């Protein structure tokens, strides 16, 4: 940004006519109004609300400074949902991106029934999350569920998948990967089909093996897509909580609760809007930090053609 401005200052052209500025601003106006109304103003309002107490019928909101934040730091559930969210992100992001890439390479090959396989991989993405979660609820049901029935074939005992704090997060992660990988696959597939075939021919002439070609040519060329997918996967790991409403409601004992789900609970079950605002500010901060670091750090390593 500073570089751009320096360069701009050196060769700054005089505006051709004052009317052009006005037209430019007018063109920006509709989008700007929508963004300010529905994004920027609510963010500021959230920050403001987090500094006040929750208004009740008998006690109006009063300024409490950073009290809500102090409360948050002392709230064990907050720390637990934050930890859970880190585990959830580490569990879902690398796996779903890697699986998406493998699936894309696989269905990009000439193989019989290719359209069918592509459709099959993409189906989980099309299903609404709540519907999918209802299906998985019965997969995970002890004794009756698909998982336990398969285990029973091999003489395994039934396991209470969602009722055991040590397995419940794994269950959520697996379901989320299943849901997301197909979506990311589509982006990889589109990118793979854009790769010029002459690269492959040239590499073949030079005697490069398939693995070498994939590692040194395909993968670097896919980096812009990988960045896009990574950003999306990261945002989703903080944003996707629909499945919790159906599968676990955050239980047992908050073992599967995530930050956004906790915000929902505080806001709409506890009716504590100012504490919910405080938690939302934290979520916004995390998202902002991630976005900046991803674009600044990863952008340098991404090879754009």
């Amino acid at each position, binding site marked *: 940004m500073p570089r751009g401005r320096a360069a701009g200052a050196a060769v700054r052209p005089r505006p051709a006519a004052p009317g052009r500025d006005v037209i430019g601003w007018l063109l920006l106006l509709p989008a700007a109004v929508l963004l300010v109304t529905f994004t920027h103003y609510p963010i500021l309002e959230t920050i403001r609300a987090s500094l006040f107490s929750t208004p009740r*019928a008998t006690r109006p909101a009063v300024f409490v400074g950073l009290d809500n934040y102090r409360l948050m730091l002392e709230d064990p559930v907050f720390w637990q949902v934050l930890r859970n969210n880190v585990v959830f992100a580490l569990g879902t992001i690398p796996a779903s991106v890697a699986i998406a890439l493998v699936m894309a390479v696989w269905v990009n090959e000439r193989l019989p029934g290719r359209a069918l396989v592509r459709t099959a991989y993409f189906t989980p993405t099309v299903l609404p999350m709540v519907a999918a979660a209802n299906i998985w*609820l019965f997969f995970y049901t002890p*004794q*009756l569920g698909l998982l336990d029935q398969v285990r029973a074939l091999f003489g395994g005992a039934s396991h209470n998948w969602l*009722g055991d*704090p040590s397995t419940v997060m794994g269950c959520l992660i697996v379901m989320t990967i299943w849901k997301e990988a197909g979506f990311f696959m589509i982006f990889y597939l589109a990118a793979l089909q854009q790769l010029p075939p002459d690269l492959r021919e040239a590499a073949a002439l030079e005697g490069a093996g398939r693995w070498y070609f994939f590692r040194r040519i395909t993968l670097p060329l896919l980096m812009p897509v990988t960045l896009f997918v990574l950003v999306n996967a990261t945002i989703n790991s903080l944003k996707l909580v629909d499945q919790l409403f159906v599968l676990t409601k955050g239980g*047992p004992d908050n*073992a599967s609760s995530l930050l956004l789900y906790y915000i929902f609970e505080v806001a*709409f079950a*506890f009716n504590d809007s100012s504490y919910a605002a405080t938690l939302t500010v934290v979520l916004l901060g995390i998202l902002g930090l991630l976005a900046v670091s991803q674009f600044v750090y990863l952008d340098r390593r991404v090879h754009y053609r």
Partner: protein
Amino acid sequence: MSRSKLGGILLAVLLAAVATGPVRGADAAVELTMYYPVAVGGPVTKIVDGMIADFEKAHPDISVTAVYAGNYDDTRTKALAALKAGQPVQLSVLFSIDLFELIDQDAIVPFDDLVPEADRAWFTGFYPALMENSRYQGKTWGIPFQRSTIVMYYNKDAFKEAGLDPNRPPATWAELADAARKLTKRDAAGNVTRWGVMIPSTGYAYWMFQALAKQNGEVLMNEDGNRTYFDKPGVVEALEFWRDLSAKHGVMQPGTVEWGTLPKQFLEGKTAIMWHTTGNLTPIRRDARFDFGVAMLPGNTGRGSPTGGGNFYIFKRTSPEERKAAYTFVRWMTAPEQAARWSIATGYMGTSKAAYQTPALSGYVKEFPPAAVARDQLEYATAEFAVHENARVKKLLDDAIQAVLTGAKTPKAALAEAQAGAERVLRRYR
């Protein structure tokens, strides 16, 4: 199931459209809008509409629009939001345990303001246990409408197979543990193929726990809703018993038991006994491929179960005419004949003794005796858990119960922690 849900949604959209439309009666009839939740299966919206049509026939000067608004929590959120936005809504059916929240938000009026002195006997016509969640500071704020309780469903075929008398369900904790031990079936490898008993611990863990505590002679909160008793020895003992069903006796699935899938596990014969709401009686009756029984919950020092479900409330932002019309409507909807009709159609219990004396309901109970278990259990019933900032305090208790059932904490430590948390919240309401 999904089709009826879809139908419900469509209906709700239609009703909402009607409700917001500029319909003004030319004859200056009083118009009422009511929100109500649906928490069980079956064509509830159709039943409500049928009753309202009959009411309007009997009272041409009052027209009522009923808006289906989702589950209990959705309905409360929507009704309060509508009030805040100045939308006309004069009364609603909301969770009985929302009482304190509604009073704290200054949203409702007590029925005492509307009922003439001479007519107050109306309040005492309802079962006293159902009125416990309606009273606050000597006034009556809610009128019981769709009310339920916890009962014990058991598989009679499994009882016979285990050598137990299918007509003598366990009546005490000791008998329950003993019967469940006989009912638990293992295969050659020692894996359980059928559990003896399951008590659900997700969603409504606090509700089930209230039953266990009451059976041990304890209640969990005071009538003013500003004090909890989670750490009393009798309460700790109740949680120990719940935990021991899996930890010591090995007759209940370890970990938490999912509320939503439990009826399926019971229907598939994966558990011989389950505790669940009476609201599920009709679906179980429809889907069970074995002979099943319904019984009162067993007891330790005595029997006990909390009540649950929805009450009528009248909102404060109403004109005197609207309040009077709303009162007339509530009175009509909860009269014995209507309560009987509602109970038969849905599976909810009749809310007054007079309802069970109507020919319709007394005939129904004779034909299908399990329908009377919930009523008979009312004698031992206690109010559903309701305090100020209910959702927050309830969650402290739910978390404690789940921590114990998953082996993370001891009952004593978990309940002491929940009690300390509840104290922090409730202190300012004393």
